């Protein structure tokens, strides 16, 4: 079997793990490669194509409304945390989110303690997840849960705490010219363009 074909099949399996089980891209790719017994790793762009195909096939009736609800929830959190110049990324920004997806927000701040203080001051409960990044400094993520009235379901919001200087490279587009994240104004435009 040729490499492209193997990569496509791994990507299709990974897409199923991402949509149905809520795995992240790296975890889904690893598990799918194990399942297929191959070392041919598909790239994120190929997996994302397969995620879109999987959503169109199996969730076309529910996904657009769920994506919209998550985008509105993301926008509300971005307004609440406006002082940290929030940007939304992940499936909510790229348009592949379902009700199981995490809302991933990047917060840019001079003082990494400031977002925690802001949450405490507003009486918002959160958990802290700190993990060593691939290279460089360890990353800090604050996790918040929120009941969504539209979906009647729990949403998970990840607040990635980043240094103010990281904003510089944050809006670089991918190989196809799409961006990985956007600010509140950009998210609002997505909501209006739907």
């Amino acid at each position, binding site marked *: 079997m040729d490499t492209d074909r193997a990569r496509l099949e791994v990507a299709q399996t990974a897409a199923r793990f991402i949509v149905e089980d809520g795995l992240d891209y790296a975890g889904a790719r690893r598990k799918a490669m194990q399942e297929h017994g191959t070392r041919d790793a598909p790239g994120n762009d190929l997996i994302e194509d397969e995620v879109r195909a999987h959503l169109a096939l199996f969730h076309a009736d529910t996904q657009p409304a769920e994506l*919209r609800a998550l985008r*509105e929830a993301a*926008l*509300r959190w971005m*307004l*609440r945390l*406006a*002082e940290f*110049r929030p940007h939304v990324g992940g499936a909510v920004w790229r348009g592949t989110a379902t009700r199981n997806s995490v809302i991933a927000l990047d917060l840019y701040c001079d003082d990494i303690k400031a977002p925690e203080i802001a949450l405490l001051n*507003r009486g918002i409960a959160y958990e802290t997840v700190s993990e060593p990044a691939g290279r460089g400094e360890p990353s800090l993520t604050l996790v918040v849960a929120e009941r969504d*009235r539209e979906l009647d379901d729990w949403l998970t919001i990840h607040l990635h705490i980043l240094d103010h200087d990281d*904003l*510089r490279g944050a*809006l670089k587009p991918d190989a196809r010219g799409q*961006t990985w994240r*956007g*600010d*509140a*104004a*950009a998210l*609002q*435009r997505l*909501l*209006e363009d*739907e």
Partner: protein
Amino acid sequence: MSGLTRRQVGVGVAVGVAALGAGAGLQARRTRQAQAEAAAASAAAASAAAAAAGPLPGPLHALDGRTLAAADVAGRAVVLNFWAPWCPPCVREMPELDRFSKSAAARDTLVIGLAIDEQPAVEKFLAAHPVGFPVVVLGYAGLSWVRKLSQDTNVALPFSAVYDRAGRLAQRKFGPTDAAELTGWVQHA
């Protein structure tokens, strides 16, 4: 897309404002430098538009059935308060706005609540916490208006803007206000 239709019907005005903001916003994503330039450009456009238009860019349809038009604001001070039921500081500020709108100090002042949410959520909130001043549902598209008035790309709620009796923008504030502050503002407006 019944939600979108509802928004477009309810907010003919805000859609126009949104279109105005979108052109500048598109460039704003590139770099911080471009962001600053675009903000300055949209600020210039916004202040030109604001000077020409006064507090209302066009007629607004309030939830109580009233239509707010140029005649309603002529010769009066106007407080535009952008809020949302999901925004705790906004919700805490509502009784203050209500108190102010019913006070003697607000005799020739029109308070307008502009809700950044969808109509059912706004109606549900107001049924539980009624206010005496008119409330208009803008939906999330109303954020473009906040950006235009604040001349800031990165906005928050609540946001209040006060217009003087000549229709000039006199005060702007992000964050909660109260009856005393509003009284001070309109006395000088």
